[in-house]
């Protein structure tokens, strides 16, 4: 892995790109922070991007055939294997580029899933892809449970949190403590850039975009695997108004899942 420095770009609401990869009219709930985060991810990536999406709300709400909200190439295969699909896409693009059948090889490849699709059922394929060193950026939208199937606990459900399968609240003595994905992945040698961000206020939103841009730089420069965990409110299933849900991210979620850059290998951090 190279240790060349990467230049930071100043991000503010003023220079947020106009580009929208996802058309309005999608079916996400009002106040869905995951959709907000996803829009931001795609703004940071720009139109030269390919998305591999794990099963979840983002897939169901954006692609009710024959409609699609996606203005960029997008693929969904299954729940647990988005990282393997991304591995195939990345390998094939590299093969095409080497053969001269692609003019350039810096198209961003984003693999994304929820906290269940990342920390539970999708962890094996994520671990394999990270270990093999595929150049794509993984984005995990963490809203603390399986929201698409109706609020079941995942390994990212924090202590005490109510879900339909932890009806008394997650009891750490019985169910064990949650997994902190970013902290864990940062310990792996193949991980280049690992960050946890949130989209609960403008300040965090701008930090999130900065982290995403940096992750994409890792990918396009081949500096190591990029992983960005985005804490996202789910007002519908948290049984809160969007405002309350966002406040909860700030008041409760971030204290358990602290924001920050956990690894920035090329910076020598």
């Amino acid at each position, binding site marked *: 892995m190279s240790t060349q420095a990467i230049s930071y770009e100043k991000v503010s609401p003023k220079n947020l790109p106009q580009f929208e990869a996802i058309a309005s009219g999608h079916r996400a709930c009002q106040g869905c922070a995951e959709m907000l985060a996803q829009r931001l991810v795609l703004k940071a990536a720009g*139109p*030269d*991007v*390919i998305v*591999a999406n794990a099963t979840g709300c983002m*897939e*169901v709400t954006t*692609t*009710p*055939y*024959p409609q*699609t909200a*996606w*203005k*960029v*190439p*997008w*693929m*969904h*295969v*299954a729940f*647990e*294997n988005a*990282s*393997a*699909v*991304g*591995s*195939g*896409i990345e*390998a*094939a*693009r*590299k*093969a*095409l580029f*080497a*053969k001269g*059948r692609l003019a350039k090889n810096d*198209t961003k490849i984003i693999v994304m899933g929820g906290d269940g699709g990342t920390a539970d059922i999708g962890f*094996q*394929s994520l*671990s*394999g892809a990270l*270990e*093999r060193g595929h150049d794509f950026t993984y984005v995990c939208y963490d809203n603390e449970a399986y929201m698409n199937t109706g609020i079941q606990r995942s390994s990212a459900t924090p202590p005490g949190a109510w879900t339909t399968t932890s009806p008394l609240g997650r009891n750490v003595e019985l169910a064990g403590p949650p997994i902190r994905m970013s902290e864990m992945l940062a310990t792996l040698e193949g991980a280049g850039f690992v960050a946890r961000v949130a989209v609960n206020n403008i300040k965090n939103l701008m930090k999130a975009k900065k982290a995403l841009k940096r992750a994409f730089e890792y990918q396009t420069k081949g500096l190591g695997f990029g992983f960005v965990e985005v804490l996202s409110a789910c007002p519908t299933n948290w049984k809160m108004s969007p405002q309350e849900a966002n406040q909860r991210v700030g008041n409760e979620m971030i204290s358990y899942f602290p924001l920050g850059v956990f690894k920035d290998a090329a910076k020598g951090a």
Partner: protein
Amino acid sequence: MRQVLEGSHAISEAVRLARVQVTAGYPITPQTHIIEAISEHFADGTMTGRFIPVESEHSSMAAVVGAATTGVRTFTATSSHGLALMHEILFIASSVRMPIVMLVANRAVSAPINIWADHSDIMPERDTGWVQIFAENGQEVYDLTLMAFKIAEDKRVLLPTMVNMDGFTLSHVIEPVVMLDQAEVDGLLPPFEAARMLDPEKPHTIGPFGDGTVYTEVKMAQDAALAAAAGVFDEVTAEFAQKFGNQYQAIETYQCDDAETIIISMGSVGETARSAVDEMRAGGQKVGQLSIRLWRPFPLARFKEAVAGAQNLAILDRHLIPGCQGGPIGLEARSAFYQDQNGPCIFDFVAGLGGRELSRATFKEIVRQAATGEPQKNNHTFLDVRLS
């Protein structure tokens, strides 16, 4: 050029000559020699592109689906539990219409754990929407692997295609195979042009959510494409025969024209069955043999035509459907003749499980039992079972 090599290496040579761009692989006996050899091809530069040493077969299938969507020719291989682990994604590969080619070295499924040949891995995957072809020897494995790309990628088909070969019996046996050169294979297989691509210049949404208002229509279109694969199989095998001489049929027959009893099997035992037929014919018995080469789409009319006139069908199934009426070929044959007044008597024998030997004596025995005309209890009989 004739080369002496094991079945697995005949496949890796075919994959190299097919100019496959992305291969994903995970070790499982008896398939492993294929991906080992392909890894070497990538390492020594005789194959270009990428080999993805995935962390499981589930990811193997997912990776080739992703790669195929990007517009490259893809290949993977597996056996037994590896195929079972892919199960979920096999449906998706055929539903998103990716022309992946996969080699399955057929092996028993646990428990007890058993690494030897039978068809209990492939038969549970029968309904996944793939084109499914069976080979009987090393030459067939080689030829059919090459043809599989052409069938899968045909615009009328665009479906993943699997070539089945019996584990060890074919994968590990060293035999002479007539190999083609690069120019010959290039003449058969033009560069792969994907119908749809994950391309930022021309974005597509692939693998969307489809509710009850569209799901049936998607499945119908898929079924029509799979049915069309039968005609494409005939075209491709005819072109192959014309170019290289080797003839392949969806239903292969031997001495069936005047046969009173026809032995039906799939896979490598067909050759043993034909030797048994020769011996029985020498003894004056009117016996024929039929191999189902194209299992899916099932060539129903061709099958019925091939066995027309026979009094008995003696079917050898290397898979048991538990709690049912025997094996999958038995069910298929009974269903084919259900409403025919003058259909043959059908006898289904479950044998050759987990590598249990199938000899000429086995085939003579099933012909003998069929000739008695005695109905089978629950429509099937286990053969060669040791009860003490």
